[in-house]
């Protein structure tokens, strides 16, 4: 069928192996641990770049390990997967740097970094999965490897948040499992991209396929935080900032959104999904979540909680884009996968920097912080503009394409939703920017950490600047070849050519 290559497996192992080794180290071997971490992160980015280059040359990479008759562990490289894998691996590298600085001197760092690596292993595994089973395996692996990170601080609040997180994700996982088994029974083993299998069954047993679709969608919607299954996300913001970055940008919610993209495009196929009218409910729920998340975000004073509700809202753009047929909206959905990631990770890093440097966790405490931390708040402001959808930041591109797609499909109500959401975004983000730059601080606070000449530690500052620049660049250079948008367009065009 296709040549077996160990490269995809190597990509998985580039974080799995460091994670396992870190687990075996002693707590005080921090130099070796940092080396392993960074080595794994750099190796992963390098490997993915290598594979991407090979893929563009037209090479195919696949790895198949048969588990049981009809049940195979398949890793395969396709453009969409590589797109997500690149996002995860690059952001992981940045987040690892950030986490090393953030957790310096903290407790249980061995555990933290090990599971951190496992998380990214799961995320890249999800990206490279070649069939539904493999996807499910990594999807559950992600749930389990995230849990120790959510409860990392060990406070009662964190432990309770962990419990909520598990209830949602394990429950969702069970429903997804049911759907996966049922799909297997109805349609046999399905590789991603084999939409003809379902297409041939669509007229035979539409009811079963519809039920299975919604079972799987429900399972995925938990991680994608679609209302009413979003409850775990705001609660989990008690975790340390690198973990929030992981949850909101690198891995977890992305896994859900990516899963929905796979489900609609690569399992059922757009035609079947339209034919069975599966997408309308998704669109309605996604649109409602966009508005709902924004409205809830308005009323949060806790900085990270406001960001968390913002994620709930922003993430549903992806689902909404998937739910509207058309090249443009699909491109918008896929590209938002990346754009939302880099913008939201910038925001969480910034919030983490403020909290770590001055101990401010509430928005009402942020008066004048911009003058003390100009770089941090500067990139934060860029991200805010992106979130609202102002050109030339990345978020504008996504919204523009989503809007165009909606017009193309004739769903004018979606445009209204997008406009309303942008207004709400502005309403809850601009006050932060205003306070940071234009309000006088009530009292001068001393930094909690040794910060030296910079506004905060270098390891905290560099990542946030990098991601900030990335989110600007993704917008400015969107028209260039190799930009996220160009890749997303290519993927979307291929989908509709089929």
């Amino acid at each position, binding site marked *: 069928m296709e040549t077996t290559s160990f490269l995809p497996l190597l990509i998985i192992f580039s974080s799995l192996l460091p994670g396992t080794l870190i687990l075996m180290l002693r707590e005080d071997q921090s130099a070796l641990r940092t080396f392993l971490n960074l080595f794994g992160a750099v190796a992963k980015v390098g490997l993915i770049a290598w594979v991407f280059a090979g893929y563009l040359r037209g090479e195919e990479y696949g790895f198949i390990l048969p588990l*049981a008759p009809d049940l195979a*562990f398949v890793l395969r490289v396709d453009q969409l997967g590589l797109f997500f894998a690149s996002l995860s691996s690059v952001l992981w590298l940045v987040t690892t740097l950030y986490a090393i600085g953030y957790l310096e001197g903290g407790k249980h760092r061995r555990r933290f970094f090990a599971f951190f690596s496992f998380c990214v292993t799961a995320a890249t595994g999800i990206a490279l999965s070649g069939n539904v089973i493999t996807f499910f395996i990594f999807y559950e692996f992600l*749930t389990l490897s995230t849990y120790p990170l959510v409860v990392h601080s060990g406070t009662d609040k964190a432990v309770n948040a*962990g419990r909520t997180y598990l209830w949602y994700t394990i429950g969702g996982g069970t429903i997804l*499992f049911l759907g996966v088994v049922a799909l297997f029974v109805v349609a046999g083993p399905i590789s991603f991209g084999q939409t003809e299998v379902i297409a041939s069954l669509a007229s035979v047993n539409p009811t079963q396929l519809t039920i299975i679709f919604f079972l799987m969608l429900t399972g995925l919607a938990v991680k994608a935080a679609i209302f009413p299954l979003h409850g775990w996300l705001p609660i989990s913001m008690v975790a340390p900032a690198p973990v929030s970055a992981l949850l909101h940008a690198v891995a977890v919610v992305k896994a859900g959104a990516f899963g929905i993209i796979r489900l609609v495009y690569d399992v059922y196929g757009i035609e079947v999904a339209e034919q069975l009218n599966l997408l309308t409910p998704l669109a309605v729920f996604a649109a409602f979540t966009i508005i709902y998340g924004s409205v809830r975000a308005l009323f949060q004073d806790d900085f990270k909680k406001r960001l968390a509700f913002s994620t709930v809202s922003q993430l549903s753009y992806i689902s909404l884009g998937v739910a509207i047929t058309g090249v443009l909206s699909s491109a918008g959905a896929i590209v938002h996968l990346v754009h939302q990631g880099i913008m939201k990770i910038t925001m969480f890093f910034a919030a983490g920097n403020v909290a770590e440097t001055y101990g401010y966790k509430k928005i009402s405490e942020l008066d004048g912080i911009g003058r003390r931390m100009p770089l941090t708040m500067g990139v934060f402001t860029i991200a805010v503009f992106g979130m609202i959808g102002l050109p030339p930041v990345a978020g504008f591109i996504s919204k523009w394409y989503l809007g165009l797609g909606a017009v193309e499909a004739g769903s004018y109500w979606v445009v209204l939703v997008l406009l309303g959401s942008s207004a709400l975004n502005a309403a809850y983000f601009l006050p932060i920017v205003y306070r940071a730059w234009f309000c006088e601080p009530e009292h001068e606070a001393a930094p909690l950490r040794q910060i030296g000449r910079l506004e905060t530690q270098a390891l905290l500052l560099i990542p946030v600047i990098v991601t900030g620049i990335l989110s600007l660049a993704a917008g400015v250079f969107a028209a260039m070849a190799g930009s996220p948008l160009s890749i997303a367009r290519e993927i979307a065009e291929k989908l509709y050519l089929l």
Partner: protein
Amino acid sequence: MTDLPTSPFPALLVGLPFLLATLSLFFSSKGKAVVGLIGSFLTALLAIVAFVEVTQQGTVIHILGGWEPPLGILLRMDSLAAVFIGMTALVGVFISLYARGYFRAQEDSSEGFPLFWPLWLFLWAGLNGLFLSNDLFNLFVTIEVIGICAVALAVLSGKKAALFAGLRYLLAAITGSMAYLFGVALIYGSTGTLDLALLGQVLEPGPTTTFALLVITPGLMIKMAGFPFHFWLPPAHSSAPAPVSALLSALVVKGAFYILLRLWTEVFGVSLTFAAGQLIGVAGAVAVIWGSWQAFMQTSLKLIVAHSSVAQLGYLLLVFPLLVLAPGVTADSADWLSPAWTAGVYQVIAHAFAKASFFLSAGIIIMAMGHDRIESFRDLAARMPMTVMAIGLAGVSLIGLPPSGGFMAKWNLLQGIFLSGQWWWAPAVLGGSLLTASYVFMLMRLAFAPARKKEPLRPVPFRLQVFALLLALGSFLIILPAESLIQFLESSQIFGSGIESIVEGGVYGND
């Protein structure tokens, strides 16, 4: 059957551990342990060699005394038996290694503990004998060997709770085997043969066969702690020393399941109705939910694990309704039989590894804390990371999350359930998984929570933690050879076979 290739291995698999157990009696306490450990390794090695032999030769037999059935007894090692024997060997070796360290580290070691070794080897011989047996009466003798050794091991600590639990266990075991033997008497009376293969050919449906089924099935369900006969299991398994709990839960109860599976598919097909399968399925479904719920309600670790066994054994019972085909369905057209069998075998193996690891971890925690009340588990993740990890991994396998062996079992079970159209079992399977997740993550949540006051921990030998963790990892690694394992199992005549049930109302055959 007697034209199959003959091999000495079946006889050696029973004889060798038996001989070593006898030999160990001549040694002092320490010598018993050494002989026991060497004996475990030798037996396991022999099991692996025999396993390889079966992969190459196919089913092998050993005609004991040279007397062919029905007069004599025949040992038959097909791929199903080989897999069970191999599982016993792998899990058994780890338990032996652990037991050596565990009993040595016990401060209050009494003279009873050295007897662990001969009893454990006798038990092992009994298990091997059971998996190999092809004779109804010989099966009775082997389950008695297993029963006596198991109860003796369960009361090894000599504590009051263990004695009460042990007596209850023993009385239940005797009742179960006597019920089984009554069925054997009737079958022998009506056919004049005891050989399973011959019985499969000559057994006629009728009131006698039905009645034999009616006493043998509950008799064996008592032995495997199938709902509603599970009452003896939690106290017995939770009050035994950790290595014993591990081997009781991981291996001993599986013996009765194995017989039940063989008898239903090989012998009693003529007398089974679709409803009978459904009845066992109901018992299994209730066991899954009830056992998991009970586990969730317990406050000490070993009781949680013991109740969890009741639930996990329930999953095994859920295989039976899939094997009994509805009237009019033939085995050739039933494409869910292979998944159902795979689910059964994988559930047995995955549970053996995971539960052994779980109990061994519980032993480590008791050794460190002096008790296993879960309210003291706070902050354990930081203080005993390896053990918490072992519990976590074993728990994940019990829940059935990928990529564990438990996932393989649940996956195939659900697949079988959907393919057969018996969707009503699905809520029990998934609900059980969710409840299992509840108690596993309740433990995890506590282990990660900060401690209010830290109890001092006694040191635990590092290797014990390694053995527990390796077993937990084993419950994941077993998924790797799944395809070849299933192919191998399919070489057994019985694997993948279904029971073409008789039409309702025709229980009494032709009269």
